């Protein structure tokens, strides 16, 4: 049927009595493509009978059997005709019966006629450079010719003996063009102004106004986000968050600035490689970082790096070239002249990004942008960043300046150190332990020197818990002195019969009246003046509870006082009245190895300076330097001394160093809250290979960066990189780029592209309905400097676009899809626009442009019903303006996307989508009738009706109707709506609780000056309006 319909539309000649000469591309290629090339086309691996029908010189050559597939001019001698005309149950029939793709009688007739006419081939139309045909001369006065588009359309309508439709009424036209260009409905003021404006330029004035509106960029971006598979999450498994909205805002601005499409392309594909690339140009490359990123546990990074690149190849080729290069991932293309080598040569352009393939520099669970990224501060953040950087500069300057003093500072410090009064206060303050308890029942007793000794029962694995007051101030470390005692076995230090001990843990906490709960002290460093081999004191801090510190207490020569020190990383602040609790753990495998006698001390010295002997002075190496006379010191010695001094001695230089470190830390912290965006950045060059069967671990031949062979080569001066690829894409020689853009623009305004397959202009694409117009538009796009606004203005200014969309049965029969355009286009609004329009009509819309994604109302459990992973869970709606922003700012979690948008045909944004379906389902009805957004919007519209619509129900309904549809309501409809409204007013008056319930939906408050029962009834009538077919349709 596709064929039949196509012929019906494409080839009026066939319907005439005299068959006109066929065109290969229009009439024949689609048949061969669909029914023959799968086995007799480009893919060598699937070729049957060694026959190629895609190349004329092959098809007209005799086969081994002597048969000739095509004998030009002689269908009766052509094997192709013989085979296709066999009965379907014959084993030799072509296409084989089992393929389920029999040729129709019409198709067979076409093949026969084509061979009779000489079996001429043409290259695929979309791969040939567009040719600018002369604009047809139309003289018939029934056609309004506003620009070239109309002439081309009229020529075809004349052939079909169809007349154009009259121009739509002004209100309809204004609503149509406003929704198409901005995605928002016209206001009543705009409608009135347009209806009043009698100048011939009235419509053009409107179009120019709309193209200047900031909402134009939003409407354009809405579609571009589908192409770019833009989302706020990574898309696989945990589907955690990312922030790509700065890229989205770049797109909006680029459209609003009317950045020419070639520049728009260069920047998104290779902006980072432009000479002196600006930050904006780098941000633009986020286009090719919008793909999903896998971070699932256990994945093989290279596998997913390859997938990311393949996604870029697919997305780039769908978006700009309308090509399905993805088919060549595993094998040569079955229909199009692209090889697997072409695919991986294209792949090579994207192969050198500095990326690992998985989520990196952020987390699979908690989300974040993955390298490479670029920071995108706003103005305020820019100022703050500058301030912080300045602070660093100032601190650095101070350091540099103070540094000059270093030799002097060291010298005076050395002099100071030699003075007797330099004897410092002791580093360790003995801890006045007030209580010590043994968990295992040992008796702990205090000795006069503030040490404690254990006696009595020696439990297997004891824990001592001691408490002591802790002075206010700072705490940085704990010293444990293990002391020998005559009462201990062998007069040693431990309680084991051999005199040893193994201390396996030390824990500290302090509590204070001002603290809600005790603070745990985390010791990070342990040092001892002696450790037994295999029982280093450091083991005491490791995770294994059985490891610990021992001191060879069984060795008579080693029964000496032993000290161990435990320090924290950063000083802990101790409030007034604190109590310290320390637990000494003995949980080694050896029973009874408990410490015998001990004393504890604390310190507030810098952790780095703390030492067991409590001198706090320089280490031996530094002391040695200090003992060397100044003039004899080597440069190394000097530097060692200075280094020590700088790090450890309180001095103006150390203050300056600290200030610099702090300033840097401040910037780093702020950096983390400044938004960033993932971008393209070249890393080390990687070799690219053809991947056998498309598998990441099966490299075949090496390939380099080359564009597909069948298309014109890269421009001469184009560099061999992504920028060069982009230059090739927008080169005027490239036959596809302008066509692809024009075709999709046409689809947006008319419902279908000039070639219906806007997603694919390869050989399987539909032959265009208006090939000359198509080519003319493509050349015009390039001629006008890739000016997107100019092209759209051209389309919406045409008489073709401005026609009424009224359908007649005859027209429906002849052209159900309206490809010939004898009438105006009519179709349902995209999901985003359905919601945006409702908010606008209700007076609720917050028309702010750009910024981080927002969280409007969502059904309960939207993220949690199917996932317990990732940071995008527990959806919480915003409370303020986030509820009323345009829909395409709604946060998009790919694995659980906003349900209403999915119901209205939005893609999931997991892959590049260039075309949406347009369905009509009961679930859409339920959403429009019952979802809180639309109920609140109905109340908003009801308030508008009551506040501004006039005094009577009739006036108010008419006002609401015009607000929603731009048109005046017919009397019959008005009567019906008024009757219903009045009934419901009465009903709600009898049921005030129901009225209140209905008008309390949503977070905005109902206008308290309006009677609740009436407002509730108007809300139901406004809901009726918002659900009308003509409201959710642009016609």
């Amino acid at each position, binding site marked *: 049927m596709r064929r039949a319909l196509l012929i019906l539309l494409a080839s009026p000649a066939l319907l005439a009595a005299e068959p006109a000469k066929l065109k290969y591309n229009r009439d024949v290629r689609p048949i061969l493509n669909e029914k023959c090339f799968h086995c007799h086309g480009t893919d060598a691996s699937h070729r049957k009978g060694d026959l190629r029908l895609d190349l004329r010189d092959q098809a007209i050559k005799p086969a081994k059997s002597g048969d000739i597939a095509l004998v030009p001019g002689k269908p009766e001698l052509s094997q192709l005709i013989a085979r296709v005309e066999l009965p379907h149950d014959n084993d030799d029939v072509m296409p084989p019966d089992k393929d389920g793709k029999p040729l129709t009688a019409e198709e067979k007739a076409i093949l026969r006629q084509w061979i009779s006419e000489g079996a001429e081939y043409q290259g695929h139309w979309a791969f040939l450079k567009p040719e600018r045909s002369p604009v047809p001369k139309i003289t018939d006065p029934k056609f309004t010719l506003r620009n070239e588009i109309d002439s081309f359309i009229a020529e075809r309508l004349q052939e079909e003996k169809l007349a154009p439709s009259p121009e739509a009424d002004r209100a309809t036209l204004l609503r149509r063009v406003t929704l198409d260009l901005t995605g928002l409905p016209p206001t009543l003021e705009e409608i009135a102004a347009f209806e009043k404006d009698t100048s011939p330029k009235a419509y053009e004035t409107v179009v120019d106004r709309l193209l200047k509106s900031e909402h134009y960029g939003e409407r354009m971006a809405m579609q571009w986000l589908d192409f770019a598979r833009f989302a706020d999450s990574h898309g696989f498994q945990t589907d955690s968050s990312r922030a790509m909205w700065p890229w989205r805002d770049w797109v909006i601005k680029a459209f609003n600035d009317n950045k020419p499409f070639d520049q728009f392309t260069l920047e998104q594909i290779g902006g980072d490689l432009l000479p002196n690339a600006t930050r904006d140009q780098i941000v633009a490359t986020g286009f090719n970082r919008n793909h999903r990123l896998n971070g699932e546990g256990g994945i093989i990074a290279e596998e997913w790096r390859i997938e990311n690149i393949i996604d870029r190849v697919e997305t780039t080729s769908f978006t700009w070239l309308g090509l399905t290069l993805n088919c060549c991932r595993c094998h040569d293309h079955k229909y199009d002249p692209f090889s697997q080598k072409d695919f991986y040569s294209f792949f090579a352009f994207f192969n050198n990004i500095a990326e690992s393939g998985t989520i990196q520099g952020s987390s699979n669970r908690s989300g974040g942008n993955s390298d490479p990224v670029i920071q995108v501060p706003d103005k305020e953040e820019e100022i703050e960043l500058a301030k912080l950087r300045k602070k660093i500069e100032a601190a650095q300057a101070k350091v540099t300046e103070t540094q000059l003093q270093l030799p002097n500072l060291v010298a005076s410090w050395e002099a100071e150190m030699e003075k007797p009064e330099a004897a410092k206060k002791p580093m360790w303050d003995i801890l006045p332990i007030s209580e010590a308890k043994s968990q295992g029942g040992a008796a702990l007793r205090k000795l006069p020197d503030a040490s404690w000794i254990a006696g009595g029962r020696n439990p297997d694995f004891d824990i001592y818990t001691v408490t002591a007051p802790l002075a206010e101030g700072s705490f940085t470390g704990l010293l444990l002195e293990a002391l020998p005692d005559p009462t201990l076995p062998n007069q040693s230090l431990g309680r084991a019969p051999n005199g040893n001990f193994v201390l396996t843990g030390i824990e500290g906490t302090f509590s204070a009246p001002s603290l809600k709960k005790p603070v745990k002290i985390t010791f990070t460093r342990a040092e001892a003046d002696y450790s037994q081999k295999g029982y280093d004191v450091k083991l005491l801090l490791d995770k294994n509870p059985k490891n610990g510190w021992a001191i060879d207490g069984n060795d008579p020569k080693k029964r000496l006082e032993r000290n161990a020190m435990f320090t924290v990383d950063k000083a802990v602040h101790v409030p007034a009245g604190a109590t310290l609790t320390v637990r000494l753990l003995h949980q080694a495998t050896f029973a009874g190895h408990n410490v015998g006698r001990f004393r504890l001390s604390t310190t507030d010295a810098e952790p780095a300076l703390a030492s067991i002997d409590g001198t706090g002075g320089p280490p031996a190496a530094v002391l040695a330097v200090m003992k060397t006379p100044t003039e004899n010191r080597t440069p190394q010695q000097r530097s060692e001394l200075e280094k020590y001094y700088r790090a450890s001695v309180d001095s103006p230089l150390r203050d300056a160093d600290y200030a610099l470190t702090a300033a840097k830390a401040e910037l780093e912290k702020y950096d983390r809250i400044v938004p960033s965006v993932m971008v393209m950045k070249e890393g080390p060059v990687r070799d690219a290979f053809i991947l056998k069967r498309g598998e990441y671990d099966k490299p075949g031949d090496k390939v380099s960066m080359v564009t597909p062979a069948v298309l014109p080569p890269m421009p001469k001066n184009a560099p061999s990189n992504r920028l060069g690829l982009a230059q090739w894409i927008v080169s005027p020689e490239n036959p596809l780029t302008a066509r692809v853009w024009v075709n999709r623009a046409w689809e947006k305004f008319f419902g279908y592209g000039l070639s219906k397959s806007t997603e694919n202009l390869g050989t399987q694409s539909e032959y265009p309905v208006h090939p000359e117009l198509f080519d003319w538009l493509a050349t015009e796009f390039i001629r006008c400097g890739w000016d997107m606004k100019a092209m759209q203005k051209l389309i919406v200014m045409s008489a073709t676009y401005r026609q009424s969309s009224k359908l007649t049965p005859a027209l429906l029969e002849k052209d159900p899809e309206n490809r010939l355009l004898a009438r105006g286009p009519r179709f349902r609004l995209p999901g985003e626009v359905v919601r945006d329009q409702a908010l606008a009509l209700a007076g609720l819309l917050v028309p702010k442009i750009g910024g981080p994604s927002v969280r409007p109302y969502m059904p309960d459990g939207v993220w949690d019903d199917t996932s317990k992973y990732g940071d995008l869970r527990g959806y919480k709606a915003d409370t303020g303006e986030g509820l009323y922003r345009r829909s395409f700012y709604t946060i998009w979690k790919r694995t659980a996307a906003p349900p209403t948008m999915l119901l209205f045909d939005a893609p999931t944004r997991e892959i590049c989508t260039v075309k949406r379906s347009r369905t009509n389902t009961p679930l859409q009805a339920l959403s429009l009738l019952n*979802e809180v957004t639309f109920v609140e919007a109905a109340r908003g519209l009801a308030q508008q009706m009551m506040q501004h619509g006039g005094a009577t129900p009739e006036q108010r309904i008419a006002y609401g109707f015009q607000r929603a549809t731009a048109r005046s309501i017919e009397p019959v409809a008005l009567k019906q709506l008024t009757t219903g409204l009045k009934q419901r007013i009465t009903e709600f008056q009898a049921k005030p609780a129901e009225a209140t319930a209905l008008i309390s939906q949503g977070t905005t408050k109902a206008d308290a000056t309006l009677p609740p029962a009436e407002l509730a009834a108007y809300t139901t009538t406004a809901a009726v309006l918002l659900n009308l077919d003509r409201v959710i349709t642009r016609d």
Partner: protein
Amino acid sequence: MNHPALQFQDRLNRRIFLKNSSTAIGAAALGSLLQDEAAAASPERYFPNFAPKAKRIIYLFQSGAPSQMDLFDPKPQMEKHRAEDLPASIRQGQRLTTMTSGQKAFPVAPSIFKFAQHGQGGIWLSELLPHLSTVADEMCVIRSMFTEAINHDPAITFCQTGSQLAGRPSIGAWLSYGLGSANRDLPAYVVMTSFGTGRREDQPLYDRLWGSGFLPTQHQGVRFRNAGDPVLFLSNPAGVDRPMRRQMLDEIAALNQRDFESFGDPETATRISQYEMAFRMQMSVPDLVDTSKEPQHVLDSYGPDVKKPGTFAANCLLARRLAERDVRCIQLFHMGWDHHGGLPAAIRGQCSDTDQPTTALIKDLKQRGLLDDTLIVWGGEFGRTIYSQGTLTATNYGRDHHPRCYSLFMAGGGIKKGTTYGETDDYSYNIVRDPVHVHDLNATIMHLLGINHERLNYKFQGLDMRLTGIAGNLVKGVLA
């Protein structure tokens, strides 16, 4: 509704059916989420290709990948090799996930669960499945499933859509597209999800698993919510009762009808009927989920969880109620089967979630005469390794992902009952007989529903796309 535009549209649709399946059905589906059986039975209809064995499918997807050697594929001889390293001759250099590829050893972990044969067919089942053991003669266990993906997201996407990457329609969407709906008031493809008790924080699910890919979006699965309205936005807003809703719909319909008469767009007429359908769904769905009139013995048979909405048991009961209402494709996803560590405890939890309700569903359908034309599939996205991930002890082990073989079972319409199909090696590591690829399984499912999987195409990007890609062979050995 007798507008000439509609009559034309109808004729056009019929003509399209006759010509070419691929473009045709898209146009034919034209906004009808719910086509009725009358249309489905029309002789002009392309699908089913032949008399189907099953009219509907209940697919009980076990997400996370159940361990085959602890449930369906006994390897008692492994006890002799306990803790020995997996022989290189078995592993054959095949790739592992990076969760275990760094392990120094791959100690063989025999299942600690006992197996016995059940039913006349002598199907081996683990002691973890005492209830299923009572319906062994309804089951066909396939032990030789294999897949291509090694991580959950791509693997489950592959099972559901025939591709590891996003973008393709799910199996239910294909069935909805090919067969339409047999119920006027319910969607053709319903999905329900539940969290497992074996591993509460397990692999998430994704919308794409029941998405429509490039098919028109009315074919996407309608996921019943576990809280609030089962179907999104089903309830009228507070303050609007059913008579008032009726009145509002009448006003909408009247105005739409007038527009239709003056503008003639068939979409307007479709919209009128979709609003009527929505109104009917507001009755049919609450009726569907209201299980208060189920007899106590039926409720009891599904186990105690049946009263807790959102559990696998509750969903199984709803599945039966959906089957009774002729919903074409009913799919349950039960999460929690990803047992990298602590497998014995976790799998006990999962089995206690699923064993009894699955069994009850089979018996319940049978008793109502629905089992013969309902296809049931129970299985996950890949298998698990015989070697232990992490430390192996006498009572504990974990298992990593294993795509090279796994088990699942089918029951109901068209299935060879009481049989076991396929065989793996001693280590349940490689398949030694009758391998079944995911595409083969999907081709077989479609066959049972009356569809030749090579014929159910949709033209996308110039290609005839299908669920099974360019592969897929019917597994004749599992057919009755």
